[in-house]
């Protein structure tokens, strides 16, 4: 079969399901175009765009200056295509009585200063901190919004999304954080600064832990890549898939 172009997409697990569904829809309507999707995390996706092994990175974090510089060193420039916003929710075991935490309290827990649930209005029990590996966009967003200048406690257990959720669902003393997309009834989301994450609070940015979900390409991408980005921004197509996955689309 003759190919008229290809789009290779790689990156964040947070965007995986809606982008895979979009790739299938895209190939159905754009005959002769190929769209492949794989994971690896936001950082890996962006690196692949810079080194030319991917055309689009799925990104679940604000693009940092380091990535732009790395591209610039190779004479390349990155372009960000914002698709949607997503919330990150602190989560605990369903039996945990703690219902709300401030960003200050979260920072204190994740930097290792606060180590007992009693200090947060819970039971007298040690806090088991869980987190993601540093290449994950969700970790990067958490670091930027919660930890800021602090480093994460070395006692944190590093897990991948499904494993982290399973750990928090099993351990009454655990705390973790999870993208809205991956929240289910096995864990309880904790509100932040008195705000729960809903489509309205995420859209209005009243919910404090929101982050952009975007596709990152090199500047002036190929026609095929531009067409895929347009598909993702189409309210009846990509935007609908992003909303179905629990994100708040931009259009």
């Amino acid at each position, binding site marked *: 079969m003759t190919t008229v172009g290809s789009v290779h997409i790689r990156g964040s697990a947070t965007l995986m399901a809606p982008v895979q569904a979009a*790739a299938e829809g895209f190939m159905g309507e754009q005959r002769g175009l190929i769209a492949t999707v794989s*994971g690896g995390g936001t950082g890996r996706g962006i690196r692949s765009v810079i080194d030319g*092994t991917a055309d689009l990175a799925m990104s679940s974090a604000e693009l940092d200056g380091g990535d732009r510089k790395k591209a610039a060193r190779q004479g390349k420039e990155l372009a960000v295509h914002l698709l949607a916003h997503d919330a990150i929710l602190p989560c605990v075991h369903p039996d945990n009585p703690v219902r709300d935490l401030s960003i200050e309290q979260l920072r204190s827990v994740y930097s290792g200063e606060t180590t007992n649930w009693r200090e947060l209005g819970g039971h007298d029990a040690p806090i088991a901190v869980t987190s993601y590996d540093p290449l994950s966009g969700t970790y990067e967003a958490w670091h930027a919004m919660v930890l800021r200048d602090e480093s994460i406690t070395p006692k944190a257990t590093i897990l991948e999304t499904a494993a982290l959720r399973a750990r928090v669902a099993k351990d009454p003393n655990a705390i973790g954080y999870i993208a809205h997309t991956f929240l289910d009834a096995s864990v309880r989301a904790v509100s932040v600064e008195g705000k729960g994450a809903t489509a309205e609070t995420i859209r209005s940015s009243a919910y404090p832990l929101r982050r952009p979900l975007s596709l990152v390409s090199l500047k002036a991408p190929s026609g095929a890549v531009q067409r895929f980005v347009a598909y993702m921004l189409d309210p009846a197509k990509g935007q609908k898939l992003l909303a179905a996955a629990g994100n708040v689309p931009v259009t």
Partner: protein
Amino acid sequence: MKRRDFLAVTGATSAGLLTGAWTLPWQHKPAEPLLIAGSTNVLPFTKALLPAFGKHQGGLEIITDGGGSLAGLIALKRGAIDIAAMSRELKRAEDDGQVCDHLFGKDAVAVVTAPGNPVGGITRAQVRDVLAGKITDWADLGGPAGPIDVINRAPGSTTRKWMEDNVMGGAEMARHVTLAPSAAALASAVAGNPRALGFLATRDLTGNVKPMAVNGVAIGRATIYSGRYPLTRSLYYVTRTSPAEPVRRFLDFVRSAEGQDALEPDLLRVY
């Protein structure tokens, strides 16, 4: 130790022998041969690319071998070879930022039954358990009670090897099952037995067997490209981040229409 010797004496070669060496038409003296080793799944595709590549390349000797994805990657990182062939994505722990992986084709493994079998779907975990001999009755897969006749490929099959590495999760495949000597033999054994279950690479799929949906996703061109079909194989050539000129020429060729044509129809082209 010379680079070429590395292939012959380390775990990077399965049989301790080089399985293929091509010296392409001599034009100018080549500095070093191009060494490609790794996944046995990729080996036939690399061999399929070489004759067409050779038409454009004067005097570049290419040596290719199997050994497995991991051994190939280690050999690449140690500087013993130029290109590691892999039939899976790099794992996070393997990705040290010094290498990059170039997708060059995709295919998938279909889990197949006879056309009349009423069970249309299976989960990835159930595939593992059936092959391990932990699930032995169709009733456990939602079908009418009766033993599952597993038809496996004989050891040495690259498709079987891929299933061992990527689906079995450390579990062993059950030994007392029927072993088919070839994909074609497996397909006809499954087609003629309503209680049979086996697996086939997409290139070996025939019309007389029925592929099952895996985790609710049917096998097809779109679901393989998107990666949603769980038993999708993505084939990569992994190189150092700034590869040398001959490596770059090889990668350019693999991505070209001519290179991709040489891989079709056994693989889904990605360019």
